[in-house]
């Protein structure tokens, strides 16, 4: 059990860790699935992580906005049952950036494994 200060630090570090990770996960998901609705992105992340990595709607909104700003994803509207719904897909630039990020993730994985071996 962590005390108040520990809880606060954990929340801060978890937030930092997840903010970058969510962007990577969203890019990976769109790379695998093609076009997806925003709700489906949250749902899939929840399914894949056993409910542990589900960004809030506000967090996902900011992530998608930031990915759009860097032209890594694009959105488009489709009318479904008379209501405009927004879908997202990866751009070519997003695919390239994702490949580069994957190398980073592999490096992080290897480093973590080596660290565990040291224990």
């Amino acid at each position, binding site marked *: 059990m962590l005390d108040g200060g520990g809880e606060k630090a954990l929340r801060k570090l978890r937030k930092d860790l997840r903010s970058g990770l969510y962007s990577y996960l969203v890019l990976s998901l769109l790379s695998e*699935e*093609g*076009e*997806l*609705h*925003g*709700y*489906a*992105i*949250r*749902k899939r992340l929840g399914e894949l992580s056993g409910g542990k990595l589900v960004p809030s*709607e*506000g967090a*996902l*909104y900011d992530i998608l906005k930031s990915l759009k700003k860097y032209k890594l994803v694009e959105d*488009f*509207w*489709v*009318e*479904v049952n*008379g*209501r*405009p*719904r*927004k*879908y997202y897909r990866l751009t070519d630039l997003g695919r390239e950036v994702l490949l580069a990020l994957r190398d980073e993730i592999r490096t992080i994985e290897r480093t973590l494994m080596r660290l565990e071996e040291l224990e």
Partner: protein
Amino acid sequence: MNEKAFEVFVSLTLLLAGLLTLAFRKRRNPFIGFRVGYTYHSKRVWERVNTFAGVFSIVYSLLLLVLALYGVSMNAFILVMMAFVGAELFVGLWMARREYELEELSEEAPEKPPAIETEKQSISIKPYILIQLGFLAFYLLLVALLWDRLPESVATHFTASGEPDSYSSRFWGVIGVPVLAWLLPLVLTIPAREPGFFARANFYPRSLRAWCLFTTVLSGGIVLVVTLALLHNAGLVSGNAITYGAYLFLGVLIFAVYRLLTVGKDERV
């Protein structure tokens, strides 16, 4: 009606609009409130945006009422009013879009876009914006060429028979007012980038291109009328030319409204 009475009337009208907007903030309807696609399609967005618009309208209409009673000039009153109305529109639209998109992330939808409707529904507004900028460039070029021929005080409003009945300073009359009037259709064109701006209801435009055509015709008409007023102030045309120009503009505008209301969603405009 004198200036003060007019300003008080406008302030009270805006106050009433604000009170009605606030009163209908929980009841979506096609007549009262901040009505765009985003608010019309979502109860949550309707309530949040109309609460903001209602409160904001009440606050600035009371401020306008104070200015009117204090006796500010008509020009200052109109500028302050336009700044508030513009800010309300800007913030309201920004808020509506953000809230709608936030709600999108928590409202279940088909995971993939339905195959039959995968066509991208946005349109490019660039040609329409360029045409409207061209109208303005043409007008400002004429202003530059005729500047020295214009009197210090220019006619800015005319009776139905083409007689001037309102005057203003040269800068405000040939640049300030025309540019502000030209901005209106331009601002109305920009939301067509977002299909979510328009509600999927019968009384809303069914074709975004028809909407852009409508705003571009409106822009052309405004530039036609202010150009004729400019030529009149430079002593090149009679007041009757402005009357004929205004009738021509109204005729084309009626046709554009007809097309706007009758054109099919996928029909070429």
